[in-house]
């Protein structure tokens, strides 16, 4: 209650005090309460980056400032928040978005109102391809890229009969479709013997695990995450599903999804993720140290994405020499910036960043799920050819 009063008083003061005119304002919209497990660390990552940049004098002598809004996981409200940020808060550009439908709605808003939007998290391929536009850029590796990273590993297993399990909405469907298409290309004799599309957040894990086992696959491709994943892992383990069948699994190595499983984390799954405890590069070490110093907590994948979002924006503004929209668009296109993952570039052909992901195997150490034998897969290596991208993306 106390903090609520304080925050109310502060916001009143903020209304009364004239906004420092020279601050660069970033409008950030996300489903903070609906997706809190990912977005609390995300916000911390953003705040860390803002502190670092402002302590170093800001960008071009101007300080950065983030104005966040909660969209209640509803695209309609996200668009209203975007209108509010643009018209009332006078922000210079937009960022954020967790759910794909919200990312697409904001991307289209950016196109209509001609303002730059950096989609930090939404994964849908459509954001940069079918529905891509001049004003929208995306940071995180897309569904296609992450599925492609895993398809390349899956081929090495030399298994013929695959079963697929995915949440029944666009992300799951598109990950499964990408995986199938790439596998058919890389390993023409592949067969898909079972497919379970489960309602998001409501998987009937026992029945699904048994149905998969009954199909007698040689390997499983999994797209489940969050609570669905936990239920599936537990049921599958109890029912002996994973004893002999290898699993290739999207996002499972991200701390957000691996940590809640604790000692019951699956062993030997091939996953994409973020092994913050084992990345030895100096860039990442610097980020890790700063984060742990500020928060006395380890970073999640969300922290990294939030941090990189702000760093990318700062780099773009620095390159553009201002916040004028057309200049920013020009600056983002082909922008190279330094991140905890090293140099990352926003591809001019589709505005997708080349941020990659770590691919490795899961294991349990000291009662916690971890990734082992991992290696960084740069995003640039997992893209369709430029001609294909050109066909997918509408001309400007």
């Amino acid at each position, binding site marked *: 209650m106390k903090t609520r009063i304080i925050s109310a008083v502060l916001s009143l003061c903020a209304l009364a005090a004239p906004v420092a005119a020279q601050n660069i304002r970033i409008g950030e919209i996300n489903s903070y309460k609906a997706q809190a497990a990912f977005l609390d660390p995300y916000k911390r990552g953003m705040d860390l980056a803002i502190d670092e940049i402002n302590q170093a004098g800001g960008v071009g002598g101007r300080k950065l400032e983030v104005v966040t809004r909660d969209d*209640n996981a509803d*695209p*309609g409200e996200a668009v209203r928040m975007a209108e509010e940020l643009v018209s009332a808060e006078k922000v210079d550009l937009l960022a954020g978005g967790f759910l794909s439908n919200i990312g697409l709605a904001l991307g*289209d808003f950016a196109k209509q109102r001609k303002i730059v939007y950096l989609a930090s998290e939404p994964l849908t391929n459509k954001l940069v391809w079918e529905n891509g536009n001049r004003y929208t850029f995306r940071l995180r590796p897309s569904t296609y890229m992450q599925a492609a990273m895993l398809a390349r590993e899956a081929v090495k297993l030399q298994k013929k009969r695959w079963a697929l399990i995915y949440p029944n909405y666009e992300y799951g469907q598109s990950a499964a479709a990408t995986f199938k298409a790439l596998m058919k290309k890389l390993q023409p004799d592949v067969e898909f013997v079972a497919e379970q599309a489960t309602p998001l957040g409501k998987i009937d*894990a*026992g029945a699904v695990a048994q149905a998969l086992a009954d199909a007698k696959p040689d390997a499983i491709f999994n797209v489940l995450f969050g*609570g669905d994943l936990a239920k599936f892992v537990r049921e599958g383990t109890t029912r002996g599903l994973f004893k002999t069948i290898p699993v290739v699994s999207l996002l499972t190595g991200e701390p957000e999804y691996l940590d809640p499983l604790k000692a019951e984390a699956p062993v030997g799954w091939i996953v994409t993720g973020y092994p913050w405890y084992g990345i030895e590069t100096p860039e990442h070490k610097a980020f890790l140290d700063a984060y742990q110093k500020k928060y006395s907590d380890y970073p999640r994948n969300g922290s990294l994405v939030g941090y990189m979002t702000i760093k990318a924006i700062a780099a773009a503004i620095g390159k553009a020499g201002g916040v004028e929209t057309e200049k920013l668009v020009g600056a983002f296109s082909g922008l190279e910036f330094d991140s905890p993952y090293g140099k990352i570039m926003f591809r001019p052909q589709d505005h997708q960043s080349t941020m990659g992901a770590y691919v490795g195997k899961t294991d349990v150490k000291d009662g916690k799920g971890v990734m082992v034998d991992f290696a960084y897969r740069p995003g640039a290596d997992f893209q369709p050819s430029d001609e294909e991208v050109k066909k997918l993306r509408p001309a400007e």
Partner: protein
Amino acid sequence: MTAASLAVQFLNGLANASTLFLLACGLSLIFGVTRIVNFAHGSLYMLGAYVAWSLTQHLSGGVGFWASMFGAAVAVAALGALIESALLRRLYRSPELLQLLATFALTLIIRDAVLYIWGPEDLLGPRAPGLAGSINILGRAFPQYDVVLIVVGPLVLLALHVLLTRTRWGAMVRAATQDRDMAAAVGVNQAILFTSVFALGSGLAGLAGALQLPREPASASLDLFAIGDAFVVVVVGGMGSIPGAFVAALIIAEIKALCIALGSVDLPLLGTVAFPKFTLVAEFIVMAVVLIVRPWGLFGQPQSIQRALNPAEPPSHAAPRWFYWLAGALCFALAVAPLALGETSYALVLAIDIFIAILFAASLYSLVGPGGMHSFGHAAYFGLGAYAAALLLKSAGAPMPVALALSPLGGALGALLFGWFCVRLSGVYFAMLTLAFSQIVWSIAYQWDAVTGGSNGLIGVWPSQWLASHTAYYWLSLALCVAGLVFLRIIHLSPFGAALRAARDNPLRAEAIGIDRRSVQWRAFTIAGAVGGLAGGLFAFSKGSISPETLSVSRSIDGLVMVLFGGVESALGPIVGAAGFVALQDTIARHVDYWRAMLGFFMLALTLLFPGGLAGVWRRRS
């Protein structure tokens, strides 16, 4: 698929049926006695899981585990008793919908409380000691814990049966279920009876949540999933019927298990059908079918005697002349406002949202208020209007004004179809059938990628150039909102409106004087659908994109909250309620971290202090 795998899938279904039954039986019990449709039941289930998790962190071993399970149930039961005696007891004489608003406010508060206490991360509980492994059934490993669940469900059913039929307390519960006024008249202490029933029902929800812990992590989204399931099971079984809830849980769980077991099947004519995808909406299809065939659920009976709680509403009359002058002046002021505010003002954007919300709330009010039909699925018609407009623009290439003009047709056609079934039902069953239809429409929009864009929806739905500015769209929304309100008001005051109110206030007498109740209600349903559709069309073009959220349950509930916020007894209610709700949500969501809880407290205060809604405040004074 072999017979053996089918048999084991049947067992999987049994285990899930037990969970569903435990979850739902408490809700059914509470409804039977108190007539309260307890929206917070899912939240109590969620709390059961969280409390059990916390207890298992401190108590270990077999004894500790089971002590945690029962401890959680007892804690939730105590909370239930507190909620009943501190809050709901004040609302038994209030309209049904107001009780709903209060319990809905509780869900908002409990969810934020859970986030505050336990944090956002999913919490995976321990497995049951000694029951972590599996047993071999027909060559397949079957979890030992599921065997326990299969047994627990029928045991609880049996215990409840004995409690209700063999004890004095049970006799009082049954008496109150049949006629609570008569039970009170013969000396049953209602306060104690209601509190104990609510505590028992809550405790069962808590137990269900706790027992789920070894199978599912505790997470802050459990409440919504659980409440949907619980309602469906209770309604399919017949409200107030415990054995009915058991049979319903069994049917729904087994149908889902069968869908999963079938997998993708090649069928003649239909091509490949992916049966697992039906699990998204299976329970709602079952509910719709059951309610169409048996209007009171499988084991339910026509709703018991309920004497009029509120004095009948006075007949509606046209407002005095000065009121029209005032309304006209307000419209004029609103119309010239953009000139003062300027094109870039956020107030215009917010006002557009408010106009759309008012139109939506007014269309719902025309059902809930004069129609006496409590729709829980009105978002379906809003969404159908939005999708109709977007599809006409994107796929059929219609110009934007034409697409918008035809959007009411989308809502009306949907309402015409579903309304025909719905008006055959009444009370809670009506509400649940509207909910089922809206969920079915939602799941179609969610899955039909090729046409509706699936979960991503359709984007690029912007107005024509001459309407694209905020000011122009503001005027358009204002004009259509006012036109819609006037249209609804004219209907409300017409002989048709009088017939509708007659059918609401006394169906028997209405039919005796020659009013065809169903036909009148069906037409009213369709009109409400059309106006809702117009609101949806306006919404689509104001946002530039639509997705299945436009059809979601939460939008239906928001609509109800707006109507109740303003007060159901006044035609001004939806206007005041929608404007207040949108403005309030917009303000506190920006300035308060735990804004959902704040909204919840606000609603609770409203239900307790101003049961007539915001518009009723003024009325009471006068």
